[in-house]
């Protein structure tokens, strides 16, 4: 077992064998699954010149625990201390050392091991860190968080917790009394008409503008001006317009932003980000020479650089052709699998339906939040769609006689939509009735309401409410 303790409320990225597997901070226990064998653990913070590292051997049935604490001055470590001291002239923080302790754990007893994947990002907490690296059985890809935290979020599994958030610009209300939470690794769709307050919400959660009232926790950190830098270190925002420096090349743009995230040697990250958006061959091109769609992809690559816990994507496929859109969709799906939380604002309802675990509809106030299937059930009664070869003689009389049918309406030529409480009960009954009446049946099945139907229903409600 390996455990880390820090007396400062800092966020540390945990790197195993050169790959960042998550972050830890403040009195938390975090488990990272690793393969059996020799590994190198490095605890990194962009605020420090040196990263403490320790090699360890992961053995089946063992948890490796690292402990980080302020390093005392001794002749052996004097050179490092001197470097720390010089660094502290501009960066006044504590150097930490690692204490390596092997302990066995009863709950870890398997003999096969999982590849590192699907590791969730870890929210921040208080003032002590405990991290454990455990050799986990195959198939266990998720991490766990235990321990107490002095400023723990309301829900430690939530990447975003928003409570009664309101933003007003003078007399104008951008959004009002908005509350929702987003889990780690979730793709959350944020939908609404133009001027609904979506972008302002993103800017507020991204610490660009201050809320008028209400509260929020972003990546485990309370939203406040004092926490702005720490929050922005853990998130990435892609505005609707990518905002690139057109006189610089693609790589130079990304190098600049890597530097702003405190990443000094970011060549590998930049190459990976460019490959992820299929722009590896355009790395040396000036951004001015790129099409709108390609610039959008560079903007997306930029958000990948910092390995964020939460990505806010504002219309990420705006201006992209269908193939490029599909690539972005696949990228988002891949990021979700890696445990990155995606906050997606979009006007493309098909995109939201395809990608989002849950969606929220905002129209100044939050109209509803939920899974698309749940929203359909909430807003629409279940129904059957029936298509026949020829028109039914007297459909009103015909469908009224079927007990399972509550209501009906025509929907084009020879097509009828029947409101039913349980399609599985109603469908056989309707089929039998149609066959008995000698009506040729082309199709019978449950009618699906699209997310667009849900959206239009909600917006129509709002328009009606305004009129009344």
């Amino acid at each position, binding site marked *: 077992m390996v455990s880390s303790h820090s007396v400062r409320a800092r966020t540390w990225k945990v790197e195993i064998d050169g790959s960042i597997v998550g972050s830890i901070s403040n009195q938390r226990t975090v488990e990272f699954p690793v393969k059996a064998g020799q590994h190198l653990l490095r605890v990194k913070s962009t605020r420090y010149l040196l990263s403490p590292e320790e090699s360890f051997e992961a053995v089946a049935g063992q948890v490796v625990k690292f402990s980080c604490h302020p390093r005392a001055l001794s002749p052996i470590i004097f050179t490092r201390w001197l470097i720390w001291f010089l660094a502290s002239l501009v960066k006044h923080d504590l150097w930490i050392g690692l204490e390596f302790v092997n302990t066995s754990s009863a709950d870890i007893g398997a003999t096969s091991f999982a590849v590192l994947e699907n590791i969730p990002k870890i929210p921040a907490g208080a003032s002590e860190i405990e991290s454990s690296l455990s050799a986990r059985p195959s198939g266990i890809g998720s991490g766990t968080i235990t321990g107490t935290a002095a400023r723990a979020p309301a829900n430690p599994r939530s990447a975003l917790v928003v409570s009664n958030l309101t933003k007003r*610009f003078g007399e104008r209300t951008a959004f009002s009394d908005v509350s929702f939470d987003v889990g780690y690794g979730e793709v959350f769709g944020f939908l609404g008409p133009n001027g609904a307050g979506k972008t302002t919400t993103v800017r507020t959660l991204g610490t660009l*503008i201050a809320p008028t009232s209400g509260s929020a926790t972003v990546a485990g950190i309370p939203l406040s001006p004092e926490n702005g830098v720490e929050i*922005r270190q853990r998130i990435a*925002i892609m505005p609707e317009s990518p905002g690139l*420096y057109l006189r610089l090349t693609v790589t130079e743009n990304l190098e*600049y932003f890597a530097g*702003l*995230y405190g990443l000094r040697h970011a060549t590998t990250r930049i190459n990976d980000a460019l490959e992820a958006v299929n722009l590896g061959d355009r790395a040396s091109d000036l951004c001015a020479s790129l099409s709108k769609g390609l610039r959008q992809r560079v903007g997306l690559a930029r958000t990948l650089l910092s390995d964020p816990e939460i990505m806010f994507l504002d219309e990420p496929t705006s201006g992209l052709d269908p193939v490029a859109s599909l690539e972005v969709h696949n990228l988002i799906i891949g990021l979700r699998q890696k445990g990155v939380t995606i906050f997606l604002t979009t006007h493309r309802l098909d995109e939201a339906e395809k990608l989002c675990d849950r969606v929220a509809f905002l129209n100044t106030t939050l109209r509803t939040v939920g899974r698309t299937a749940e929203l359909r059930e909430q807003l629409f009664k279940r129904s059957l769609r029936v298509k026949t070869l020829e028109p039914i003689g007297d459909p009103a009389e015909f469908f009224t006689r079927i007990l399972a049918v509550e209501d009906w309406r025509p929907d084009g030529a020879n097509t009828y939509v029947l409101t039913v409480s349980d399609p599985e009960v109603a469908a056989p009954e309707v089929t039998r009735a149609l066959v008995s009446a000698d009506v040729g049946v082309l199709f019978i099945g449950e009618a699906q309401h699209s997310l667009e139907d849900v959206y239009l229903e909600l917006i129509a409600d709002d328009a009606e409410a305004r009129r009344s």
Partner: protein
Amino acid sequence: MSLDATRLRAVVHKELLDYRRKRAIVVSMVLLPILFLVEPVVSIFVAAPSESSSALDSFVILPLLYMLLIAVVMPSTLAAFTVVGEREQGTLEPLLTTPLREQEFIIGKGAAVMIPSVALSYLVYGLFLLAVELFAHPAVATAVFHNGPILLALFLFAPLVAGWSVVVGMAVSVRASEVRVAQQLGMLASLPITGVVLLLAIGVIHPTFPVAIAFAAGLLVIDLITLRIVSRMFDRERLVIGTKATRS
């Protein structure tokens, strides 16, 4: 105030790279010092060497101080572009979403404007003094090199007046609604310095070592105070949405 060296370096590096790629900036950076060099060179080379050494000493003051304006004028338009320019080209919002602190933004941008301005000013001063040493009449050259306080002021004041010009330009840029307005107003930064140069030239202020040191110290303090004010004027909300921040 905690500053991150990597972020500062990134801002400075990107700005310098951006300047190099814009031909108009490079051309103006080269031409402006040359234009400012013409008057001092002509003055020095047409000076009558037969005049008394005290008259020559007084005569060379104005051309020397005139060159100080290079360090004032050159950074003002660049500094005025720093914030409002980013806003106009749509790059400010992505920048503000990063962990970059306000102070890092301002110091990084300011340094990127100051570095080429001061370097070019020093280069011009050096070329001027070299020309005087090689080609001017020995009496005139002696007058130039004997003007210790003025030469000290020239080299000591270049970064200070450039700093003044940068912080004023950035203050304007933080609040301006468009680049043209910012650049027009930024040019006003040169007025106080021009005024001091004039007062020195017409003999209201006598250039001595104590006066030079006192002015340098005063200017440094003013620069630092103005820098702090600019830092406080930097309001992310105003920059993103164009109106003043409102908090409950």
